[in-house]
């Protein structure tokens, strides 16, 4: 089994944004992996590893699209336990979602992967399109916003619990497939691979890399591909017209009585 996991580097969402020249100023940004991608790698590793043993049930490959020199987030996933990496050397600012999806699909095919695990969205622009597009391009089944995953090794299929508006939908998807993950996938008992005891409780959240993992990460193979190697033409059909900070909030109004508040809510704001 081969599991492909995507990692995107984004400016730290906990830092405040800076604006310059009609756009965002990233010059002093701290770059971090998209949190949902961290959930994705955690999911992949829980599927691949047998707790208490050394056996691996799957090879975990991390895919990053971006300049070759900016691979720190990919290295971080290798340090967490992924087996090898692939970098598609391209300027992510010049790629739209459609192209990114094509690149991922091409790598998936080239590797003959069985499963793509991706974050449900990236926290910087919150597009939330890539996994679905990749599934479409590959013409394989998909389960998005996964909160639980169970792997039926014999049947080569996954049972995925998805949190939807009116409850939990349980889906069974045969492999190969695409799964996008949500926050709850990293709860202690969300992932079961059929070999680790089903009662095992993982540490909540994406794992910390071990120091050994960090020093070993450098020695893991990372292949660098160009989009042309994958037969994908780079380009974008998206254009950023401008980025500006939202207008500052106007001062509120002070009301003296509940009646006055009610009056304003019904007549002025018309919200009740």
């Amino acid at each position: 089994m081969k599991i492909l996991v995507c990692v995107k580097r984004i400016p730290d969402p906990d830092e405040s944004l800076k604006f310059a020249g009609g756009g965002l100023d990233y010059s002093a940004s701290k770059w971090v992996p998209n949190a949902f991608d961290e959930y994705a790698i955690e999911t992949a590793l829980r599927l691949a590893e047998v707790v208490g043993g050394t056996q691996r049930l799957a090879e975990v490959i991390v895919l990053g699209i971006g300049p070759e020199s900016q691979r720190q987030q990919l290295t971080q996933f290798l340090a967490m336990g992924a087996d090898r990496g692939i970098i598609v050397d391209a300027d992510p600012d010049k790629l739209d979602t459609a192209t990114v999806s094509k690149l991922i699909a091409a790598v998936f095919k080239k590797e003959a992967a069985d499963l793509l695990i991706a974050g449900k969205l990236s926290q910087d622009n919150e597009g939330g399109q890539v996994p679905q597009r990749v599934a479409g391009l590959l013409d394989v089944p998909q389960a998005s916003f996964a909160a639980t995953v169970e792997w039926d090794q014999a049947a080569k299929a996954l049972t995925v619990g998805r949190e939807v508006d009116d409850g939990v939908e349980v889906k069974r998807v045969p492999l190969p497939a695409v799964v996008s993950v949500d926050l709850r996938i990293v709860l202690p008992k969300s992932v079961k691979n059929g070999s680790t005891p089903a009662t095992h409780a993982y540490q909540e959240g994406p794992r910390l890399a071990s120091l050994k993992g960090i020093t070993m990460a450098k020695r893991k193979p990372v292949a660098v591909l160009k989009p042309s190697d994958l037969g994908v033409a780079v380009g974008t059909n998206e254009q950023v017209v401008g980025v500006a900070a939202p207008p500052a909030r106007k001062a509120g109004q002070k009301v003296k009585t509940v009646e006055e508040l009610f009056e304003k809510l019904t007549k002025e704001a018309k919200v009740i």
Partner: protein
Amino acid sequence: MSTTSFSVDLRDLHFVLFDQLAAHEQLAAIPRFAELDREVYEATLAEGERLAREVLAPINAPGDLAGCSFDGQGNVTTPKGYREAWEVLREGGWLAPSAPSELGGSGLPFTIHVSLSEMLCGACMAFMMYAGLTVGAARVILGHGPEGTREMIARKMFTGEWGGTMCLTEAGAGSSVGDNRCRATPTDEPGVYLLEGEKIFISGGDQDLTDNIVHLVLARTPNAGKGTKGLSLFMVPKYEFDAGGALGARNGAKVLRIEEKMGIHGSSTCVLGLGGDLPCRGVLLGQENQGIELMFLMMNEARIGVAVQGHAMAAAAYNYARGYAQERIQGQSIREARSQDAPSVAIVQHPDVRRMLMTQKVYAEAMRSLLLRMALVVDREHATEDPAERERLRGRIDLLTPILKATCTDLGFEVAVGAVQVYGGYGYIGEYPVEQLVRDVKICSIYEGTNGIQAMDLVGRKLRIGGGALFIEWMQEAQSRLAAAAEAGLGGPAEAIGKAVQLLAASAMHLAGLGKARKVEAAMIQAVPFTRMFGLVLLAIECVEQALVAARLRQTRGDEPLLIGKQRNLEFFVAAILPQAIALGKSIQSNDESALDPSLFV
């Protein structure tokens, strides 16, 4: 940033390690670290920061509140969450980052270990003491433990399966280690002794984090002489073990009581009885009477470790204070003092708050720079094959260690107190994190040799080695660093600091003169002020060096706040802090002996 969340100055750590010291390049020249590079170091720091924030910071305040508990039967329970955190650090190899990887450590440079310690101690100092003492004890055992089992034992300790302690202090023997009275009587078994006596204040004397604990105990053999020269060092396990490390019977080293104390409540401080209800077997390390010598082998690193604790607490305190000052709204801007309806502002707008923050920032950043420079010297000293080079580097470590220990721990306390002041009343309240830092960091100026003892070590021993050779060599290097700074355009500050260096040298000469005139007491009154002055001068030189690097980087990276901050640090240090060093220089040479008047303090 929220008021109560712990944070680390990762950017400044990067600045010091990679821009200023080029640690990655210096370390790459050391064969053992040749495969490591900046990327590995950055990844290590990034993950260490997460560990500090996510695993250790959350157990800090609850551990302070709950403290350790004792069952009266010799068993200590650490606060809730400590065991889980120990497992996380153990599994990830974070307990002994710079121990050899063949022995369960992570094989990183000491410089990176120190960087990690800043974050991890800053997040929970009490917890990290268990790790620090375990690793320190393991190093002694690796060097001098019983042949055949020393590596097995060290591995168990580096991996956190077993813990370790250092047992020097007794009720009658604190600063004066030579007054140790614990007895060690040989048995028929070669190398095995029976120990009797009582050690006090033993950190980690018992805990529930590890399967076994290996105590390193100083004791006196039957016909040994008085003082430190008659002390021997013994390895005393909590449980006996065989050559494979399988645990056997309970040994007779047992905790009788734990202390209630001011801070570090999560770290057990134990009275350890030796040979009370059970015979207490100890294995001699090295030779008889070699005890203090073996302890000294790890003394410098242990003292640097305490200096790092002091700095870690300063850095944490400053980060909290800066965050709080941005959020707390109180008072109007002084510029709008006359306006009735001027808006209230965050306290960071008030000049006096900015002055406090500036003081904290300068100290925290300059100490970081000083400690990491020292850590690199330690790495190079370990690595070098050239005896002359090793001698030179060791001399530098010997000279500066007491200064770093005393300066970083005293300033750690001052910065923590300053952070409380920034918080105002909220700083004094347990709900906010800074009062704990004050209580926790205070111990750093006391243990591992009080700062008074450090100062005596500096003035009474280190300055005198080779007729002042270590000092003179340091001074020549300082002067050439300052000359380089002057050449690069920082002539004004370099000159001011150069004067302080001159005054420091004159003060050292003055103390040497008092010594020659047999006015030892008059000289020793000035030991602590001299150490402080030396520390301030060291920090000043770091400031000038950082400003220099920052000016160079601004040409390519532009006016990043961090880089501008380095220029301001230098200006502030020279204007507001360096004069303290000058004043100390004057008072050191004042020949004042008033405190020695025997009619006082009666």
